[in-house]
């Protein structure tokens, strides 16, 4: 097994620093999930140009698993068959652990908009749910905030990922509930729903279907 911290899917940490926009969170999807199944975060090796000097110790291009550089690669043999190869940690010896597996086709979760896929490992059929870490954190915040958000001044909904607007569900003047979908943004194959952070009326919609947006763009203002 690979060393590295894991945590329960139901209690995500709130990272202090910025989240790598490429990082994905993987959790066992309901109804496949059992109590105690951990969620993990996987991100590509940090960009060498921005890597801090101490990161260099871990190796040139190891992906990060829960923030820890991990010597793991996925070999693909066509669409379905794959093999996970976990090498011994840097500085230790021993054989690499190879595990054959089958990846099912990706489906989009009808309610969460996350990416669902069946992975079969040594006969175990594990349904996993994958989404961008940033989106997972926001979704969690929205879920926690729902019901406790109080009415205040106007709230600006800004883009947290770059992408393309594929749906606009509200127009100026509409009243919205907390958690109601206002936009769908497609980014890196994933459909990301943006939801109203609290109830109110839509003051302004800053984008239209087909617009390309960047992080920080003002999308919707709710009054």
């Amino acid at each position, binding site marked *: *097994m*690979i060393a590295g911290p894991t945590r329960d899917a139901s209690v995500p940490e709130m990272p202090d620093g910025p989240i790598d926009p*490429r990082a*994905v969170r*993987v*959790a*066992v999807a309901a109804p496949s999930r*059992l109590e105690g*199944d*951990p*969620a*993990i975060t*996987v991100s*590509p*090796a940090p960009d*060498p140009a921005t890597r801090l000097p101490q990161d260099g110790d871990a*190796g*040139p*291009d*190891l*992906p990060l*698993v829960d923030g820890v550089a991990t*010597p*793991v*690669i*996925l*070999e*693909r*043999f*066509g669409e*379905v*068959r*794959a*093999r*996970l*190869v*976990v*090498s*011994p940690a840097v500085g230790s010896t021993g054989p*690499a652990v*190879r595990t054959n*597996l*089958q*990846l*099912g086709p990706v489906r989009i979760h009808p309610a969460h908009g996350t*990416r669902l*896929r*069946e*992975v*079969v*490992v*040594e*006969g*175990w*059929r*594990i349904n*996993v749910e*994958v989404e961008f870490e940033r989106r997972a954190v926001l979704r969690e915040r929205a879920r926690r905030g729902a019901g406790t958000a109080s009415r205040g001044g106007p709230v600006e909904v800004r883009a947290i990922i770059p992408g393309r607007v594929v749906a606009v569900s509200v127009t100026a003047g509409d009243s919205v509930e907390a958690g109601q979908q206002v936009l769908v943004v497609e980014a*890196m*194959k994933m459909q990301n729903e943006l939801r109203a952070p609290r109830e109110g009326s839509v003051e302004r919609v800053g984008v239209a279907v087909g617009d390309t947006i960047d992080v920080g763009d003002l999308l919707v203002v709710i009054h």
Partner: protein
Amino acid sequence: MTPPFNRILVANRGEIALRIIRAAHELGMQAVAVYSDADATAAHVRAADAAVRLGPAAPAESYLRIDAVVAAALESRAEAIHPGYGFLSERAAFARAVGDAGLIFVGPPAAAIAALGDKLAARRAAHAAGVPHVPGTLEPAPIDRPDQLEAVLAAAEAVGFPLLVKAAAGGGGRGMRRVVAADELPAALIAGSREAAAAFGDGSVYLEREIMPARHIEVQLLGDATGQVIALGERDCSTQRRHQKLIEEAPAPGLTETERRRLHAMAVRLGSAAGLQNAATAEFLYDRDGNFWFLEVNTRLQVEHTVTELVAGLDIVAEQFHLAAGAPLSPRAIAAADRAARPMSHAIELRISAEDPARVFAPTPGRITRWVMPAGPGVRIDTAVEAGDRIPPEYDPLICKLVVHAADRTAALARLRRALDETEIGGIQTTLPFHRAMLAEPGFLDATGLSTSWVDAHWDGQASRARAVRVASLAAGLAELPEAAVDEPARIASAPLPGGLRRAAEPATRDGGVPAWRTAGRALATDRWPG
């Protein structure tokens, strides 16, 4: 050789219906299938020469309807009916109805089914034949006679605690209660009797000593109309969960030739005494002191007949058809029986079921999306499903029997391991992880841990699953990364070019070299392809 019949009807579904149709075709007979609405396009229907609809999916409205099955046979002008296992296979009333319609029942006579199907009657038959049976009572407990309670308690003390309350008409553990002390007995008798009455229409219960730890060892019997009964060898079916077998093998590991002869002789004596014909199985418990205790007789083809077929070199279903047509035991069968105490090879069957081994083997009906079965030397697959099929919730969860045959048990275990590595099933959870784990279990590998209580006592599905969750999460995460850490040679391996593998340029690292961990996985990926 002349076919035993021109046309037969198979009163079953799934893998066993297909297996019987195969035997029929190999013998030159036509096969008629029956089906419920859930099975209208099933493999056994497609394989048969004709098919007759029985009714809706519910077994009581289709495969359990004696009138409909007999009518289907008459309508399709079949001469004989093979019942398979389960459903109507051990109903004496069915065997009788088939005979009354002028058709031949491929199985023991109705009288033998009735006599041996009642466990108490079978115990009395064993007693009369001098075959040691599991200690206990031989008459139904008088549960409706409060004045007899003292006598029942005295009988229980004689049997010893812990003991089992069992249903005379029982099967699959229904009506069974475990009793550890005398004061629990009256309640257990009433509850067991009520459950048995609801399940079988017969509330008779009796007492039996709990023999534990014990192995489940059974003997395959064949008999002909002249009264000759032979034993084709024994099977060990100890790996069970709640009386449902999960792994079966032939021969039973570790028995001496003397023990085998003694066991086979007991089974033959019992079968002869009961007037057994065609095929049946006598089940025994084997305790740590080397004693065999008769348990019950199954008057039908067993799920696990395959392992005996492989070791005995015999098609048991074909033998059944010949015997049903009135032929004497074949020279081939008699020769196999003569060799049975000195088996020369080993076979193991895994029952792959639509059940979740991490959730107490709960059934997992659903659609199979991926179905890749193993092949190669010594591998036999008995199944009726393929990718795209739906496993209906109405029937048995067994979807595939993976059977291997090899020179000895060690070779058979190795063959099983590689066969499991080749097996891929997607869309539903199956018992595959359990079987893989058993092939790493020291007590199973050296056969010292074989026991009917092993799975319930030791199986930890969640621990086995936890590793798979880790691997699945890593794989799914890496597959979804915008800059996926996917190895280049593997991509090429998926689409080999003519003339061998052409390797892609290695992605250069900062210092110009390729790290060892990154290339470590390549040997296996590239070894598969020439060049």
